[in-house]
Protein backbone atom coordinates (compact mmCIF):
# COMPACT_ATOMS: atom_id res chain seq x y z
CA UNK A 1 0.00 0.00 0.00
CA UNK A 2 1.13 3.48 -0.80
CA UNK A 3 1.98 5.68 2.21
CA UNK A 4 -0.59 8.31 1.30
CA UNK A 5 -3.38 5.79 0.87
CA UNK A 6 -2.43 4.22 4.21
CA UNK A 7 -2.65 7.61 5.88
CA UNK A 8 -6.00 8.46 4.35
CA UNK A 9 -7.31 5.04 5.40
CA UNK A 10 -6.04 5.67 8.94
CA UNK A 11 -7.76 9.08 9.12
CA UNK A 12 -10.94 7.44 7.89
CA UNK A 13 -10.76 4.60 10.46
CA UNK A 14 -9.94 7.01 13.31
CA UNK A 15 -12.86 9.30 12.43
CA UNK A 16 -15.44 6.55 11.91
CA UNK A 17 -14.40 4.69 15.07
CA UNK A 18 -14.40 7.89 17.10
CA UNK A 19 -17.97 8.64 16.01
CA UNK A 20 -19.09 5.05 16.61
CA UNK A 21 -17.37 4.98 20.02
CA UNK A 22 -18.84 8.28 21.19
CA UNK A 23 -22.33 7.38 19.95
CA UNK A 24 -22.20 3.93 21.59
CA UNK A 25 -20.99 5.41 24.90
CA UNK A 26 -23.67 8.12 24.80
CA UNK A 27 -26.54 5.90 23.69
CA UNK A 28 -25.83 2.89 25.90
CA UNK A 29 -24.72 4.09 29.34
CA UNK A 30 -24.08 1.41 31.95
CA UNK A 31 -27.35 1.24 33.81
CA UNK A 32 -28.16 -1.21 36.56
CA UNK A 33 -31.33 -3.23 35.91
CA UNK A 34 -34.35 -2.58 38.15
CA UNK A 35 -33.84 -5.90 39.91
CA UNK A 36 -30.11 -6.33 40.52
CA UNK A 37 -28.31 -9.41 39.19
CA UNK A 38 -25.26 -9.20 41.42
CA UNK A 39 -24.12 -6.58 43.91
CA UNK A 40 -20.62 -5.70 45.02
CA UNK A 41 -20.84 -4.56 48.63
CA UNK A 42 -17.89 -2.48 49.76
CA UNK A 43 -16.59 -2.70 53.31
CA UNK A 44 -13.40 -1.99 55.20
CA UNK A 45 -12.96 -5.73 55.70
CA UNK A 46 -12.98 -6.32 51.95
CA UNK A 47 -15.61 -6.31 49.24
CA UNK A 48 -18.39 -8.90 49.06
CA UNK A 49 -19.95 -10.17 45.86
CA UNK A 50 -23.62 -10.93 46.50
CA UNK A 51 -25.53 -12.87 43.87
CA UNK A 52 -29.00 -11.32 44.17
CA UNK A 53 -30.43 -13.30 41.27
CA UNK A 54 -29.30 -16.64 42.64
CA UNK A 55 -31.03 -15.89 45.94
CA UNK A 56 -34.28 -14.62 44.44
CA UNK A 57 -34.82 -16.74 41.33
CA UNK A 58 -36.82 -19.95 41.25
CA UNK A 59 -33.86 -21.80 39.79
CA UNK A 60 -31.75 -20.56 42.71
CA UNK A 61 -32.75 -20.39 46.37
CA UNK A 62 -36.22 -19.03 45.55
CA UNK A 63 -36.42 -16.59 48.46
CA UNK A 64 -39.32 -14.16 48.45
CA UNK A 65 -38.54 -10.44 48.47
CA UNK A 66 -39.86 -9.98 51.98
CA UNK A 67 -37.49 -12.61 53.38
CA UNK A 68 -34.79 -9.96 53.24
CA UNK A 69 -36.56 -6.68 52.45
CA UNK A 70 -38.43 -6.89 55.74
CA UNK A 71 -40.21 -3.52 55.81
CA UNK A 72 -41.73 -3.89 52.40
CA UNK A 73 -45.41 -3.17 51.74
CA UNK A 74 -47.32 -5.29 49.25
CA UNK A 75 -46.75 -4.31 45.59
CA UNK A 76 -44.06 -1.92 46.69
CA UNK A 77 -40.67 -1.85 44.99
CA UNK A 78 -38.12 -3.05 47.54
CA UNK A 79 -35.67 -0.43 48.68
CA UNK A 80 -31.98 -1.25 48.97
CA UNK A 81 -30.61 -2.26 52.38
CA UNK A 82 -28.32 0.77 52.54
CA UNK A 83 -31.22 3.22 52.30
CA UNK A 84 -32.05 2.66 55.98
CA UNK A 85 -29.02 0.81 57.29
CA UNK A 86 -26.28 3.41 57.00
CA UNK A 87 -22.61 2.54 57.56
CA UNK A 88 -22.47 4.36 60.92
CA UNK A 89 -25.86 4.51 62.59
CA UNK A 90 -27.45 3.25 65.78
CA UNK A 91 -31.08 3.16 64.78
CA UNK A 92 -31.77 1.13 62.76
CA UNK A 93 -28.75 -1.08 63.21
CA UNK A 94 -25.73 -0.18 61.11
CA UNK A 95 -25.21 -1.65 57.69
CA UNK A 96 -22.48 -4.18 58.50
CA UNK A 97 -24.45 -5.55 61.45
CA UNK A 98 -27.63 -5.81 59.37
CA UNK A 99 -25.81 -7.75 56.67
CA UNK A 100 -24.12 -10.04 59.15
CA UNK A 101 -27.38 -10.79 60.92
CA UNK A 102 -29.31 -11.26 57.72
CA UNK A 103 -26.78 -13.20 55.65
CA UNK A 104 -24.98 -15.21 58.27
CA UNK A 105 -28.17 -15.72 60.28
CA UNK A 106 -29.94 -17.28 57.30
CA UNK A 107 -26.91 -19.34 56.33
CA UNK A 108 -26.63 -20.62 59.90
CA UNK A 109 -30.34 -21.42 60.14
CA UNK A 110 -30.48 -23.23 56.82
CA UNK A 111 -27.17 -24.95 57.39
CA UNK A 112 -25.87 -23.88 53.98
CA UNK A 113 -24.02 -20.91 52.59
CA UNK A 114 -20.84 -19.23 53.73
CA UNK A 115 -20.38 -18.14 57.34
CA UNK A 116 -16.62 -17.70 57.65
CA UNK A 117 -15.19 -14.20 56.99
CA UNK A 118 -12.97 -15.25 54.08
CA UNK A 119 -15.83 -17.06 52.37
CA UNK A 120 -17.47 -13.71 51.55
CA UNK A 121 -14.98 -10.91 52.21
CA UNK A 122 -12.31 -10.39 49.57
CA UNK A 123 -9.53 -7.85 50.07
Amino acid at each position, binding site marked *: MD*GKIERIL*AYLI*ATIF*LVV*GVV*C*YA*AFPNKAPEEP*IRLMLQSSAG*KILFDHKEHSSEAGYDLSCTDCHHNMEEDETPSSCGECHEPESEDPIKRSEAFHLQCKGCHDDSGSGPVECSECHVM
Partner: protein
Amino acid sequence: MHSQKLFIGSHAPYFHNGNSVASKSYNIMFAALPAVGMGIYQYGIPALAVITFSISCAMLWELIMNIAMKRPISIGDGDAAAIGLILAMLLPATTPWWIVLTGTFLAIVIGKQIFGGLGCNPFNPVLVAFAILMLSWKNYLDFDAALLNYDLGFKMLYPLGALKHFGINAIGDFTSQGLLMGQQIGGIGASCGLGLIIGGLYLILRGYIRWEIVFSFLIGIFVTALLYNISDPDKYAAPMFHLLTGYTLIGAFFLATEDSSSPVNLVPMLLYGAGAGIFTVLIRNIGAFVDGVVLAVLIFNVANPLLDKIRPKALGKGI
Protein backbone atom coordinates in the same frame (compact mmCIF):
# COMPACT_ATOMS: atom_id res chain seq x y z
CA MET B 1 9.19 -13.01 7.90
CA HIS B 2 11.41 -15.21 10.00
CA SER B 3 13.82 -17.67 8.56
CA GLN B 4 16.02 -20.24 10.23
CA LYS B 5 18.85 -19.31 7.86
CA LEU B 6 21.56 -17.12 9.24
CA PHE B 7 22.04 -13.72 7.71
CA ILE B 8 23.13 -14.01 4.16
CA GLY B 9 24.57 -10.93 2.52
CA SER B 10 24.19 -10.39 -1.17
CA HIS B 11 24.64 -7.60 -3.66
CA ALA B 12 22.01 -5.14 -4.65
CA PRO B 13 19.52 -4.86 -6.24
CA TYR B 14 17.22 -6.16 -3.54
CA PHE B 15 13.73 -7.40 -3.93
CA HIS B 16 10.97 -6.08 -1.68
CA ASN B 17 8.51 -8.79 -0.80
CA GLY B 18 5.70 -6.28 -0.41
CA ASN B 19 5.44 -6.63 3.34
CA SER B 20 5.17 -3.52 5.45
CA VAL B 21 4.54 -2.35 8.99
CA ALA B 22 1.00 -1.51 7.93
CA SER B 23 0.29 -5.00 6.62
CA LYS B 24 1.63 -6.45 9.87
CA SER B 25 -0.55 -4.18 12.00
CA TYR B 26 -3.67 -4.86 9.96
CA ASN B 27 -2.95 -8.59 10.05
CA ILE B 28 -2.67 -8.47 13.84
CA MET B 29 -6.00 -6.67 14.00
CA PHE B 30 -7.50 -9.17 11.57
CA ALA B 31 -6.21 -12.05 13.72
CA ALA B 32 -7.82 -10.49 16.78
CA LEU B 33 -11.24 -10.41 15.15
CA PRO B 34 -12.51 -13.87 16.26
CA ALA B 35 -11.85 -13.07 19.93
CA VAL B 36 -13.09 -9.49 19.61
CA GLY B 37 -16.20 -10.67 17.76
CA MET B 38 -16.99 -13.09 20.57
CA GLY B 39 -16.52 -10.28 23.10
CA ILE B 40 -18.93 -7.99 21.25
CA TYR B 41 -21.41 -10.87 20.90
CA GLN B 42 -21.27 -11.52 24.64
CA TYR B 43 -21.20 -7.99 26.02
CA GLY B 44 -22.99 -6.11 23.25
CA ILE B 45 -22.77 -2.43 22.38
CA PRO B 46 -20.73 -1.39 25.47
CA ALA B 47 -17.90 -3.67 24.27
CA LEU B 48 -18.10 -2.14 20.79
CA ALA B 49 -17.92 1.29 22.40
CA VAL B 50 -14.73 0.45 24.30
CA ILE B 51 -13.06 -1.10 21.24
CA THR B 52 -13.89 1.62 18.72
CA PHE B 53 -13.15 4.43 21.17
CA SER B 54 -9.85 2.85 22.18
CA ILE B 55 -8.66 2.40 18.58
CA SER B 56 -9.61 5.95 17.59
CA CYS B 57 -8.11 7.51 20.74
CA ALA B 58 -4.83 5.62 20.26
CA MET B 59 -4.62 6.90 16.68
CA LEU B 60 -5.42 10.44 17.78
CA TRP B 61 -2.74 10.38 20.51
CA GLU B 62 -0.25 9.16 17.90
CA LEU B 63 -1.26 11.98 15.55
CA ILE B 64 -1.02 14.57 18.32
CA MET B 65 2.45 13.31 19.29
CA ASN B 66 3.60 13.29 15.65
CA ILE B 67 2.54 16.91 15.30
CA ALA B 68 3.89 17.97 18.71
CA MET B 69 7.27 16.34 18.08
CA LYS B 70 7.42 17.55 14.45
CA ARG B 71 7.83 14.01 13.16
CA PRO B 72 6.34 12.38 10.07
CA ILE B 73 2.70 11.35 10.50
CA SER B 74 2.86 7.66 11.41
CA ILE B 75 -0.73 6.66 12.05
CA GLY B 76 -0.84 5.15 8.56
CA ASP B 77 1.30 2.21 9.70
CA GLY B 78 -1.60 0.95 11.83
CA ASP B 79 0.58 0.32 14.89
CA ALA B 80 -1.34 2.79 17.04
CA ALA B 81 -4.64 1.22 15.96
CA ALA B 82 -3.33 -2.25 16.86
CA ILE B 83 -2.19 -0.98 20.28
CA GLY B 84 -5.62 0.57 20.86
CA LEU B 85 -7.34 -2.65 19.88
CA ILE B 86 -5.20 -4.92 22.07
CA LEU B 87 -5.61 -2.57 25.04
CA ALA B 88 -9.39 -2.65 24.57
CA MET B 89 -9.30 -6.45 24.43
CA LEU B 90 -7.88 -6.52 27.97
CA LEU B 91 -10.50 -4.18 29.43
CA PRO B 92 -13.94 -5.05 30.79
CA ALA B 93 -16.85 -4.07 28.55
CA THR B 94 -18.05 -1.52 31.09
CA THR B 95 -14.81 0.49 31.19
CA PRO B 96 -15.63 4.23 31.39
CA TRP B 97 -14.57 6.39 28.44
CA TRP B 98 -12.08 8.38 30.52
CA ILE B 99 -10.15 5.23 31.46
CA VAL B 100 -9.94 4.32 27.77
CA LEU B 101 -8.75 7.85 26.96
CA THR B 102 -6.14 7.73 29.75
CA GLY B 103 -5.10 4.18 28.88
CA THR B 104 -4.48 4.98 25.23
CA PHE B 105 -2.54 8.10 26.27
CA LEU B 106 -0.36 5.95 28.54
CA ALA B 107 0.18 3.35 25.82
CA ILE B 108 0.95 5.67 22.93
CA VAL B 109 2.66 8.59 24.68
CA ILE B 110 4.32 7.03 27.74
CA GLY B 111 4.72 3.51 26.34
CA LYS B 112 5.80 4.28 22.81
CA GLN B 113 6.31 7.85 21.58
CA ILE B 114 8.57 9.21 24.31
CA PHE B 115 11.03 6.40 23.57
CA GLY B 116 11.13 7.40 19.90
CA GLY B 117 8.12 5.71 18.37
CA LEU B 118 7.76 2.46 16.50
CA GLY B 119 10.44 -0.09 17.29
CA CYS B 120 12.08 1.96 20.04
CA ASN B 121 9.86 1.05 22.98
CA PRO B 122 11.58 -1.10 25.62
CA PHE B 123 8.24 -2.31 27.01
CA ASN B 124 5.09 -3.44 25.33
CA PRO B 125 3.07 -0.15 25.25
CA VAL B 126 -0.20 -1.97 25.94
CA LEU B 127 1.24 -3.55 29.07
CA VAL B 128 2.72 -0.29 30.35
CA ALA B 129 -0.71 1.31 30.01
CA PHE B 130 -2.60 -1.60 31.48
CA ALA B 131 -0.26 -1.99 34.45
CA ILE B 132 -0.70 1.69 35.35
CA LEU B 133 -4.49 1.47 34.94
CA MET B 134 -4.58 -1.74 36.97
CA LEU B 135 -2.72 -0.15 39.86
CA SER B 136 -4.58 3.17 39.66
CA TRP B 137 -8.23 2.17 39.24
CA LYS B 138 -8.38 -1.44 40.32
CA ASN B 139 -12.12 -1.36 41.02
CA TYR B 140 -12.89 -0.44 37.42
CA LEU B 141 -10.72 -3.27 36.16
CA ASP B 142 -12.00 -5.85 38.63
CA PHE B 143 -14.12 -8.04 36.36
CA ASP B 144 -16.39 -9.23 39.18
CA ALA B 145 -17.23 -5.64 40.10
CA ALA B 146 -17.31 -4.27 36.56
CA LEU B 147 -19.64 -6.87 35.03
CA LEU B 148 -22.27 -7.00 37.79
CA ASN B 149 -25.16 -6.31 35.43
CA TYR B 150 -24.42 -9.12 33.02
CA ASP B 151 -25.92 -12.58 33.17
CA LEU B 152 -24.56 -14.63 30.29
CA GLY B 153 -25.80 -18.03 31.33
CA PHE B 154 -22.59 -19.39 32.81
CA LYS B 155 -20.85 -18.90 36.14
CA MET B 156 -20.34 -15.14 36.33
CA LEU B 157 -17.24 -15.18 38.48
CA TYR B 158 -13.79 -14.27 37.22
CA PRO B 159 -12.08 -17.70 37.33
CA LEU B 160 -8.67 -16.50 38.53
CA GLY B 161 -10.31 -14.26 41.16
CA ALA B 162 -12.39 -17.17 42.41
CA LEU B 163 -9.28 -19.33 42.64
CA LYS B 164 -7.26 -16.67 44.43
CA HIS B 165 -9.93 -15.68 46.94
CA PHE B 166 -11.92 -18.82 47.56
CA GLY B 167 -9.56 -21.65 46.69
CA ILE B 168 -9.79 -24.59 44.38
CA ASN B 169 -13.32 -25.59 45.40
CA ALA B 170 -14.68 -22.39 43.89
CA ILE B 171 -13.53 -23.27 40.38
CA GLY B 172 -15.17 -26.69 40.16
CA ASP B 173 -17.87 -25.36 37.78
CA PHE B 174 -15.38 -24.29 35.12
CA THR B 175 -14.64 -26.91 32.48
CA SER B 176 -11.76 -26.70 30.01
CA GLN B 177 -14.20 -26.90 27.12
CA GLY B 178 -16.33 -24.06 28.49
CA LEU B 179 -13.29 -21.87 29.14
CA LEU B 180 -12.02 -22.53 25.62
CA MET B 181 -15.38 -21.49 24.17
CA GLY B 182 -15.38 -18.25 26.14
CA GLN B 183 -17.69 -19.22 28.99
CA GLN B 184 -15.89 -17.03 31.49
CA ILE B 185 -15.97 -13.36 32.30
CA GLY B 186 -12.89 -11.32 31.53
CA GLY B 187 -11.50 -8.81 29.07
CA ILE B 188 -13.58 -8.09 25.97
CA GLY B 189 -11.18 -9.95 23.73
CA ALA B 190 -9.34 -12.05 26.26
CA SER B 191 -11.87 -14.66 27.35
CA CYS B 192 -12.58 -16.64 24.18
CA GLY B 193 -9.66 -19.07 24.10
CA LEU B 194 -10.59 -20.63 20.79
CA GLY B 195 -10.77 -17.25 19.02
CA LEU B 196 -7.36 -16.27 20.38
CA ILE B 197 -5.80 -19.58 19.34
CA ILE B 198 -7.22 -19.28 15.80
CA GLY B 199 -5.94 -15.70 15.53
CA GLY B 200 -2.58 -16.59 17.04
CA LEU B 201 -2.01 -19.56 14.75
CA TYR B 202 -2.84 -17.34 11.77
CA LEU B 203 -0.17 -14.87 12.89
CA ILE B 204 2.39 -17.66 13.41
CA LEU B 205 1.67 -19.19 10.02
CA ARG B 206 1.94 -15.82 8.30
CA GLY B 207 5.22 -15.24 10.15
CA TYR B 208 4.09 -12.09 11.97
CA ILE B 209 4.82 -13.47 15.44
CA ARG B 210 7.44 -15.93 16.61
CA TRP B 211 6.22 -19.38 17.57
CA GLU B 212 9.27 -19.79 19.86
CA ILE B 213 7.96 -17.10 22.22
CA VAL B 214 4.37 -18.33 22.10
CA PHE B 215 5.15 -21.95 22.82
CA SER B 216 7.84 -21.36 25.41
CA PHE B 217 5.45 -19.01 27.23
CA LEU B 218 2.65 -21.59 27.21
CA ILE B 219 5.03 -24.41 28.19
CA GLY B 220 6.44 -22.23 31.00
CA ILE B 221 2.93 -21.75 32.36
CA PHE B 222 1.97 -25.39 31.90
CA VAL B 223 5.05 -26.88 33.55
CA THR B 224 5.08 -24.46 36.50
CA ALA B 225 1.36 -24.90 37.10
CA LEU B 226 1.77 -28.67 36.82
CA LEU B 227 4.55 -28.69 39.42
CA TYR B 228 2.42 -26.64 41.81
CA ASN B 229 -0.56 -28.85 41.12
CA ILE B 230 1.43 -32.01 41.80
CA SER B 231 2.87 -30.55 45.00
CA ASP B 232 -0.60 -29.78 46.42
CA PRO B 233 -3.63 -30.59 44.23
CA ASP B 234 -6.01 -29.30 46.94
CA LYS B 235 -4.52 -25.84 46.81
CA TYR B 236 -3.23 -25.20 43.29
CA ALA B 237 -5.25 -25.42 40.08
CA ALA B 238 -4.50 -27.77 37.22
CA PRO B 239 -2.30 -26.49 34.38
CA MET B 240 -5.14 -26.47 31.83
CA PHE B 241 -7.04 -24.04 34.03
CA HIS B 242 -4.09 -21.65 33.99
CA LEU B 243 -3.71 -22.01 30.24
CA LEU B 244 -7.33 -21.13 29.49
CA THR B 245 -8.07 -18.38 32.02
CA GLY B 246 -7.08 -14.78 32.54
CA TYR B 247 -4.75 -13.21 30.01
CA THR B 248 -2.76 -16.38 29.26
CA LEU B 249 -3.72 -16.82 25.61
CA ILE B 250 -3.89 -13.16 24.67
CA GLY B 251 -0.55 -12.79 26.47
CA ALA B 252 1.01 -15.64 24.51
CA PHE B 253 -0.18 -14.55 21.08
CA PHE B 254 -0.61 -10.77 21.26
CA LEU B 255 1.36 -9.37 24.21
CA ALA B 256 4.61 -11.29 24.75
CA THR B 257 5.32 -11.36 21.01
CA GLU B 258 5.47 -7.59 20.52
CA ASP B 259 8.47 -6.93 18.26
CA SER B 260 10.40 -4.20 19.93
CA SER B 261 10.21 -5.55 23.48
CA SER B 262 10.96 -9.21 22.77
CA PRO B 263 14.22 -10.95 21.80
CA VAL B 264 15.17 -11.99 18.28
CA ASN B 265 17.56 -14.92 18.77
CA LEU B 266 16.41 -18.46 19.38
CA VAL B 267 17.75 -19.14 22.88
CA PRO B 268 16.78 -15.68 24.21
CA MET B 269 13.27 -16.12 22.78
CA LEU B 270 12.88 -19.45 24.54
CA LEU B 271 14.21 -18.04 27.82
CA TYR B 272 12.04 -14.93 27.50
CA GLY B 273 8.85 -16.90 26.84
CA ALA B 274 9.50 -19.55 29.46
CA GLY B 275 10.53 -16.98 32.07
CA ALA B 276 7.39 -14.91 31.53
CA GLY B 277 5.31 -18.08 31.73
CA ILE B 278 6.96 -19.20 34.97
CA PHE B 279 6.55 -15.76 36.53
CA THR B 280 2.91 -15.66 35.49
CA VAL B 281 2.12 -18.77 37.50
CA LEU B 282 4.31 -17.65 40.42
CA ILE B 283 2.37 -14.37 40.64
CA ARG B 284 -0.96 -16.19 40.33
CA ASN B 285 -0.15 -18.88 42.87
CA ILE B 286 1.89 -17.08 45.49
CA GLY B 287 1.80 -13.41 44.51
CA ALA B 288 -0.57 -10.66 45.51
CA PHE B 289 -2.22 -10.17 42.11
CA VAL B 290 -5.02 -12.24 40.67
CA ASP B 291 -3.45 -12.52 37.22
CA GLY B 292 0.27 -12.42 36.58
CA VAL B 293 0.54 -12.16 32.79
CA VAL B 294 0.81 -8.37 32.57
CA LEU B 295 3.52 -7.98 35.18
CA ALA B 296 5.40 -11.15 34.20
CA VAL B 297 5.70 -10.07 30.57
CA LEU B 298 6.71 -6.57 31.65
CA ILE B 299 9.46 -8.00 33.86
CA PHE B 300 10.78 -10.00 30.92
CA ASN B 301 10.53 -6.92 28.67
CA VAL B 302 13.09 -5.46 31.07
CA ALA B 303 15.23 -8.57 30.76
CA ASN B 304 14.96 -8.56 26.96
CA PRO B 305 18.16 -6.60 26.10
CA LEU B 306 20.13 -8.74 28.52
CA LEU B 307 18.70 -11.97 27.14
CA ASP B 308 19.45 -10.90 23.60
CA LYS B 309 23.16 -10.77 24.49
CA ILE B 310 23.09 -14.53 24.08
CA ARG B 311 23.93 -14.68 20.40
CA PRO B 312 25.00 -17.34 17.94
CA LYS B 313 28.80 -17.61 17.87
CA ALA B 314 30.29 -15.30 15.28
CA LEU B 315 31.74 -17.04 12.27
CA GLY B 316 35.42 -17.79 12.79
CA LYS B 317 35.41 -16.74 16.44
CA GLY B 318 37.30 -19.02 18.78
CA ILE B 319 39.29 -20.81 16.09
